[in-house]
């Protein structure tokens, strides 16, 4: 998620996703505003607890796919009837069955490439981009909850981390 730069956060690291899930539930119950949660892999059931809405990436994917379908089908129809009509194997110029495999392939290609690019753009990823990691270990084996210090004060956050069994508590400006 791209956030504003220079946010001062306090974060706790957990060893286990079950501890993390319990902690997130408690934070929600205590109305502590969570800045973000970082995990090395998708933790099952985390999204509904955090109240994240369903990604709209697949809707974009459908549109890209439909664009691919139209591009391939209309493109081939134009080429083989108007632009450069050729007879292949005694078939009519406009041979729909022969267009279907290519239409299918362009649909998949457009959807796949379009979704990948959209995903990268939304998340601010790309070649040469430097990302501010809170901690390198959250890409390996640690589960992290971060609070924005301006929303949740440090004492409250530290008390929360100690009651929920965080291994380590740090602060960082990202």
């Amino acid at each position, binding site marked *: 998620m791209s956030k504003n730069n220079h946010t001062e956060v306090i974060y706790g690291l957990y060893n286990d996703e079950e501890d993390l899930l319990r902690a997130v539930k408690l934070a929600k119950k205590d109305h502590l505003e969570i800045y973000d949660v970082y995990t090395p892999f998708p933790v099952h059931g985390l999204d509904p607890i955090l109240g994240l809405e369903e990604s709209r990436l697949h809707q974009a994917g459908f549109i890209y796919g439909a664009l691919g379908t139209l591009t391939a089908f209309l493109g081939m129809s134009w080429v083989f009837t108007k632009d450069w009509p050729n007879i292949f*194997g005694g078939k009519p110029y406009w041979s729909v069955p*022969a267009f279907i495999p290519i239409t299918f392939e362009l649909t998949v290609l457009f959807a796949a490439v379009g979704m990948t690019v959209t995903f990268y753009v939304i998340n601010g990823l790309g070649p040469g981009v430097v990302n501010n990691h809170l901690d390198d270990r959250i890409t390996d084996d640690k589960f992290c909850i971060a609070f924005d210090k301006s929303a949740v004060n440090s004492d409250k956050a530290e008390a929360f981390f100690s009651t929920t069994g965080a291994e380590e508590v740090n602060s960082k400006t990202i």
Partner: protein
Amino acid sequence: MNQYTFASSHRNVLLGAIGLGIVCLILTWMGDDAYHTRFWTNFLHNSVFFTMISAMALFFIAACVTAYAGWHTTFKRVWEAYSIFLIVGLVLLAIVGLGNYFHWHHLYHWADDAGVEADPILKGKSSFLNKNWYMLGTIIFVGAWAFFAHKLRSLSLEEDLVGNSSFKQHKSMRFWAAIVLPIFGFTSAAMIWQWVMSVDAHWYSTLFAWYSTASAFVSMIALTILLIIFLKNKGYFTVVNDNHIHDLGKFLFAISIFWTYLWFSQFMLIWYANIGEETIYFRERYDNYPYLFFGNLIINFLVPFFILMRNDTKRKFGSVSFVAIIVLLGHWVDYFLMIKPGALINRNHALGHGHEEHGADAAGHGAEHAVAHSSEFVAGFTMPGLLELGTFIGFLGLFLYVALTVLSKSALVPKNDPYLDESIHHHVI
């Protein structure tokens, strides 16, 4: 409620459906031609359709056990019950097989000895397309499937009673399931060639077995969804929830697309190669059955594709059962379209006003007559009529009667299955 009781009201409804089916079969028989072709095609069509559904249930149990799958465990008794129908299917198809010997019907051109003698193509195929192979194949192969279905179900029931952490029964099921898969893979193809593809005896397609099996697979998943939702509405299967329906919906979606892929692969290669003896199959359907031919693609591909594409339509019982009903009927029509056109040509040939005869006519009016004949509407062949629908309801009633009777004999949710806990806690989103 983990013990299903087959309520007498449901029993009566299903018996009524069977009665309707029998009445429709009798009515079909009475208003039929000399060979009773409409009766026998309806009988073959529905027997093959429901036998294949129950065979696919056996196949899918075996595939899930072999793949160490756990999601289906809570409702696997439904598939076990479906697969027990194989023994009924064996009897039904053996009746068709006996018909070959006693000339009760003229469904298959290859069963006509005089015709085969005069026909070098059928003579070349006669080592496989003959009455003995048809009969023995049906009895031995379907018998083997029925045996495997019984074996897997009895192991599952034994596990309910004496299963413990050594998982002896489950290990034994893995052994049997691994045997089922290759045997079923080859024998189902051979039987589909005999039962369905050989109606068009001159024609063949190497994709045909895959295509018709995918059709049966979709129907099996659709019928599973409908029965589970019905039982849930009656208060059973409380542990089966929208996550399991979601996975079944994914199968309905995926196998519908797989079916379309196979349908199109078969069609496009034949269309592109444009070899007369291959294209005749599609020419016949394209010219004389255009509504069914294109409607087949719309209801079996476009409807499930666009409705089930979203996440939530696969989870909502209303939308998923709507698609299941459409697709079940759609694949029944798909089998209709595999059998009826060829059977109609065989009938016309046998009754002595086939196309071949007109070809012998030297005068031009013969060809004109043939064209006029081929586009004329034949009740029960050109379109499924009310009698076909009634017969379908009858066979569906018989299938469900057998399945529900089997289901009422044991606990609905298995006990002691190693994957039971995984299945109860199955979550997909």
